């Protein structure tokens, strides 16, 4: 605790120095963000020289508070969720020095938005089955294939990309991981309209896309290992944020209950309070998980949090449509748009209900997460595998 206080004192003086040297009121937003990165105040847990100070992640909210209080702009993290939450930690863990220097700073400032080219029409839960091929051609690779469920692809400057570089070995062994320049002429991004009416995601067609070998993350054939690290970060991001009581979907439904007394019935009340209790317990469970992580007792428990989050979002949004009665029959707008930022608790009840269906599919389906919990937490036997020791090219497709 004494050490914590010393770190906080140090952070306070660093923030003060930054604000003194670069007054946010008179500095261009991007210039300020770059200066903040150079001062090591972007992400506390990153190393010095790469926007951080090598501190535990838990100190970052403190820095953010100090800077916000000082009138500093933030990097609009919601606009680059994939970049900050998934690409950056992967680049940090597997990138070369050159790659870290090139990519991390503009990623953090938001100048360069990132997307993720992982899922394919034939590789969803079975992600290691990706069939997008990369063939070596001198110092670069030529990529052909199709990716899907890519959010922000139409705004992205770069992507993290999982491809097959060797079809003659087993499916996990033949993968490699690259950074893909989304401005390459062979990249074709098409909106993928979903059941809400809008297109939050894209399909991405890759035709003879050239990627320099210097854009490879990790060794050739080590793509699965790198991708697994990325996905772990995704689940930490989804299940891990601290929330106030009645934050998220429960808050939206509770507000409707308070605002519309004429809709209340005893039966709906018991269902509402059942979910209120579960939402509060989920919040406390997240708090407890963060306390465990702070003590260095990490594990696959993030998967458990995500299971709960998805179920509650679906049940709560479903309850709200029902609670609204006649108004629940109406929908705000089916117009096809490409939203800039997606908020699960945004728009109207019908939208929330439909969008929440994705919560148990994206970032690991609830069924796959239950397998993970059962196998890695409870130690139950793994699913029988018929595809492990066969060359990818010989697998039934």
């Amino acid at each position: 605790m004494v050490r914590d206080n010393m770190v906080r004192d140090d952070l306070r003086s660093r923030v003060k120095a930054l604000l003194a040297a670069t007054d946010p009121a008179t500095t261009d937003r991007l210039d300020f963000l770059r200066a903040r990165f150079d001062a090591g105040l972007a992400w506390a847990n990153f190393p010095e020289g790469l926007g951080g100070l090598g501190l535990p992640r838990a100190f970052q909210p403190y820095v953010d508070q100090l800077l916000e209080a000082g009138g500093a702009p933030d990097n609009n993290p919601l606009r680059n969720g994939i970049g900050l939450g998934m690409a950056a930690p992967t680049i940090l863990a597997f990138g070369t020095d050159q790659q870290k220097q090139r990519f991390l700073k503009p990623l953090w400032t938001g100048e360069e938005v990132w997307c993720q080219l992982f899922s394919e029409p034939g590789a969803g839960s079975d992600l290691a089955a990706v069939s997008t091929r990369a063939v070596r051609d001198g110092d670069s690779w030529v990529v052909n294939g199709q990716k899907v469920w890519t959010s922000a692809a139409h705004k992205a400057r770069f992507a993290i990309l999982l491809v097959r570089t060797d079809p003659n070995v087993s499916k996990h062994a033949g993968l490699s991981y690259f950074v893909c320049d989304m401005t390459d002429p062979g990249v074709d991004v098409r909106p993928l309209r979903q059941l809400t009416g809008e297109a939050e995601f894209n399909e991405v067609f890759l035709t003879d896309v050239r990627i320099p070998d210097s854009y490879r993350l990790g060794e050739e054939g080590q793509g699965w290992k790198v991708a697994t690290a990325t996905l772990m970060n995704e689940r930490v991001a989804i299940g891990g944020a601290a929330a106030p009581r009645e934050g998220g979907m429960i808050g939206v439904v509770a507000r409707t209950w308070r605002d519309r007394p004429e809709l209340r019935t005893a039966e709906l009340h018991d269902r509402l309070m059942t979910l209120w209790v579960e939402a509060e317990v989920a919040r406390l469970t997240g708090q407890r998980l963060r306390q465990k992580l702070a003590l260095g007792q990490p594990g696959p428990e993030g998967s458990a949090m995500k299971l709960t989050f998805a179920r509650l979002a679906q049940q709560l949004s479903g309850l709200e449509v029902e609670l609204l009665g006649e108004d629940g029959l109406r929908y705000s707008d089916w117009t096809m748009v490409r939203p800039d930022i997606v908020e699960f608790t945004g728009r109207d009840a019908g939208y929330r209900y439909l969008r929440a269906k994705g919560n148990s599919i994206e970032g690991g389906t609830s069924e796959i997460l239950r397998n993970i919990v059962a196998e890695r937490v409870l130690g139950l036997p793994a699913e029988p595998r018929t595809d492990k020791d066969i060359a990818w090219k010989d697998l039934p497709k």
Partner: protein
Amino acid sequence: MTSESTNSDPDDLNLLYTDVEDSLRESIHDLLTARCTPERVVAAYDGDRDLQLGLWRSLSVDLGLAGLLVPEDRGGAGATAREAAVVLEELGRFVAPVPFFTSAVVATTALLQGDDDETLGQLAAGGCTAALVVPFSASATSFRPTVRADNGKLQGRVTSVVGALDADVLLVPVSTDAGVELHRVEASGTGVGVEPVVSLDMTRQLADIDFTGARSTQVTVAESGDAAVRDALELGAALLASEQLGVAQWCLDHTVSYLLDRKQFGRPVGGFQAIKHRLADLYVMVESAHAAARYAAATAADHDPDRRLAASVAQAYCSEVAVKAAEECVQLHGGIGMTWEHPAHLYLKRAKADQIAFGTAGAHRLRLGELVGLPVVPA
């Protein structure tokens, strides 16, 4: 004892265990592993109460658990609800048939409001055992006394009281014109009839109690008697969640290990996906129950303003998780789970009885609605 606290942010409360709590757990666990075996516990259903007395003496006197919640200057250990919760987790894990909850938590909490330090000291030292005379289904919001004082002598009947069969001293909420008083009565005195009841959970057997002119001493006056009873029921609800957690954790642990071992169709049954998914769901629930129970204990220990809400959240959640875990335990054990020989039924009966104790989940949800401004119908 801490007074109504103020400065602590409930978000900073430790939901894990301290080193002291871990070592407390270890000592109880070792004792119960040696002494409180399922074969001995199940004997309670056939009327054998031998285990109770010896085990309680070891826990209350040798380990000093009886005085956990009593401040040091009143003869106790001066611990808090956090440590008591850890004790209850372990007792739940063994469905231990001892009156820790009824005497050292509920009755003791009621007595702390009064000035009968002699009884309190005896309780703390394990020299006597007490029970609060309320139905086990009573809750802090709904309880009304059914006993009256007539010329200084008690008259009335209270049904389904827990802990009374183990108690030397009965603490009786008495309804008077001025309010609720708390009275102390010798359990073996004249005018007190303690009738054992065949109970769903014989590891915490009920009794119906008739007061027919029993002599009593007033422990708290009418102004504070109501608060004493309510405090006791409130803390009881908060900490019962930890017992329910212990029950649920045992059920999960033992079901997982059984299903790793048990083979059908040439495979461990725990390898079938339909089973794995049920166990994963159960794991998520038990982990969540951990958070709810620890938060209830931590807020109670700190006298945090959030403690009532936390108690209702914990009861509404953990009581259902314990039942679910015990039901899954029976089902996933298959035939053996239905037998008298296998201990699963001990946990099922405890969990089901606990579900009704100190307010059902539904009653706590109703109260929460009031506490958080989500009332059932327009005012």
